[in-house]
């Protein structure tokens, strides 16, 4: 095979692999990205039921109720609050008035059914999306990050 031919084969191989990677990435991006919304945004523009979402805010004071492995709580950004249900074990740092991010779907009754609930490793740390959401509502207090 000539030098040119060899180079063409290599370039073809590179393009093939890149094409595969790009195709995988584009198809996955279309189907697996999840949008982050705050309770206020959700109230202003309700999402279609069944679409995966990420929500975040503070766990509303006095809203947490546990029944065995079923948990109910509300997430608030100061202006609006959203009811959330979650079946499973809540993370260690899940507390009232603490920042939380949940992923799941909105059901027809307007309750958010979470399948993942994230609170952070560090009690001083607040998810950035939650900070921005709270700032937008003007209820942000303190610098949040040390």
């Amino acid at each position: 095979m000539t030098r040119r031919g060899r180079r063409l084969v290599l370039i073809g191989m590179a393009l093939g692999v890149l094409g595969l990677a790009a195709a995988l990435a584009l198809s996955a991006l279309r189907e697996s990205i999840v949008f982050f919304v705050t309770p206020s945004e959700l109230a202003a523009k309700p999402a279609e039921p069944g679409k995966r979402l990420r929500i975040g805010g503070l766990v509303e004071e006095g809203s947490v109720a546990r029944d065995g492995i079923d948990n109910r709580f509300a997430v608030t950004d100061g202006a609006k609050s959203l009811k959330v249900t979650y079946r499973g074990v809540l993370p260690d740092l899940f507390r009232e008035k603490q920042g939380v991010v949940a992923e799941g779907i909105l059901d027809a009754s307007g309750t958010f059914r979470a399948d993942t609930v994230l609170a952070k490793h560090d009690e001083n740390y607040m998810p950035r999306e939650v900070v921005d959401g709270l700032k937008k509502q003007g209820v942000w207090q303190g610098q949040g990050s040390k």
Partner: protein
Amino acid sequence: MIPELAHFALVLACALALVRTVVALWGAARDDDALMAVAEPVALVECLFVALAFAGLVTLYVSSDFSVTNVFVNSHSAMALVYKVTGVWGNHEGSMLLWVLVLALCSALVALFGANLPPRLRARVLGVEGAIAAAFLLFILATSNPFLRLDPPPAEGQDLNPILQDIGLAIHPPLLYLGYVGCSVSFAFAVAALIEGKIDAAWARWVRPWTLGAWIFLTLGIAMGSYWAYYELGWGGFWFWDPVENASLMPWLATTALLHSALVMEKRDALKVWTVLLAILAFSLSLLGTFLVRSGVLTSVHTFANDPARGVFILAIFSVFVGGAFVLFALRAPALKPGGLFAPISREGALVLNNLLLTAACATMLTGTLYPLALEALTGEKISVGAPFFDRTVGPLLLCTIAVMPIGPLLSWKRGDLKGAAERLAFAAAIAAVVAGLALYLLRGGPLIAAIGLLIALYAIAGSLTEFADRIGLFRAPLADVSARLRGLPRAAFGVLFAHLGIAVSLLGIVSEVGWSEEKIISLKVGDRAEIAGYDIALAGVSQRDGPNYRELVGRMEVRRAGVVVAVLEPAKRLYEARNQPTTEAAIETFGFGQLYASLGEPGGDSIVARFYWKPLVTLIWLGAVLMAFGGALSLSDRRLRIGAPRRARSAMPVPAE
């Protein structure tokens, strides 16, 4: 006194690093031996000063000197001694100091063992390393000084973040840093070679041990971090595709690619430009990882409280070094002569394919990690790119990589025989298909992707063994010949075998965990039973216990199989009093290669929520990583890397590059 002295030592180290950079690079540019000779002793003394500063911080932690802010915020007098020591790097300032210490150690090693490098290359490598060290020392001194005093000194510390009070975390960051910073040596070699405008097979031979060393530590560090998250966070997952985890996997992919391309360069003098680029990329990705972790621009479960000013500083360091290296690359790379030719079907060709797949996987990961940032900056929309994205992109690409892995070693250099290789692998593929089929039959099916992964993992194991058996003539030559060949084989050949087996074994563990794990979440009262994967678990009692700096609620669970008690699990819910922070302590029992995993949730009334997992073959994930690292270590100990190469290289030195 200690904090002040240690701080002063850091300032001196920073000044020395600057001296080293300027004098060494200037000396190399003027070809002045006296100036270049300054670099080595300076690197050693600088390392000594950084070590002194680090020892100072350790002393402060061990003696619980709360007059130092950093100790006050991250330590407690009641903590066990081992956590007082590991607390040193369980926080931002201390971990940056560790980073710099490892960097200084690497430079000192280059200075000590670099006698066989050409003097100009050595001076430039030490100069570039010095610049990196100076930048990070400045960063510490300007934004993250661990030795700041607190007046008046408090009586008691605020305690180390409880989830960091764990032996896994004691080992994980130092290993990872050895890996990250090890990449800086390959980077320094690449930049030095670009300044020099000359690069040859000897260069690859010097870079390979450093890359290999960095790769071994990255492998172990990532595996350790994964195991730590698995048992400490109590969710039973081994990988979350979290940005911070991705930040450690990307340099690993890049160094894996670099190892393979440096091999082509060493043996065949080809792929020079690409290898230099990879060396730059690997360290750039390490720096990016540091930036992502330290600046908090990405939301990650691993992000701790942080300070935006630091992010800006690290971003500046990142831009200067990465930007500078790429500009240099753009200017000099065209001048580097292309090397040996090879047919597409050859071992070189296979290694190119390996490199393409690994870098494609790395690029996809980078895209997924940075895409949310870019989208938010451009449109203000907040999205998260999580596990589903990475599973569907990086997953298939890495599966492809592992699938072609056994073919490479079976092809010869320059021009290979694909048909012959396929014939030799057919047997391995057949065995894999039979075993996978049998396993699927016994397991009564499973998810498609897990079945494919299982097949590939088994085939890669069989394929790697086939290649090895082929080399020693097993089943073909008489037994005496086989054992003679086995003894004559270089250690690097065993290294390849173990590393390739390791990745396949890890894949087997991953596939089994993903495809056939069982999970049960249940609310239990004392005396209640739960059943999972044939194990019968009874909650025998719940009790309160006191630790040195925590209280814990312990559930005592008896595990029975066929009526016989086979294990007692004691998962706990701990409360660390100083921070009033709860943690979950999972209880794990290993049966064969599988694990039974139990963790507790919140107690409510007279019952408690418990979470059980059965994870078949899960330990293979980490054992595979250990195998890989072992293979790397074997390869590193190969005589050819230690002795033969430099000697040959020196005789080749006076000859200008072709």
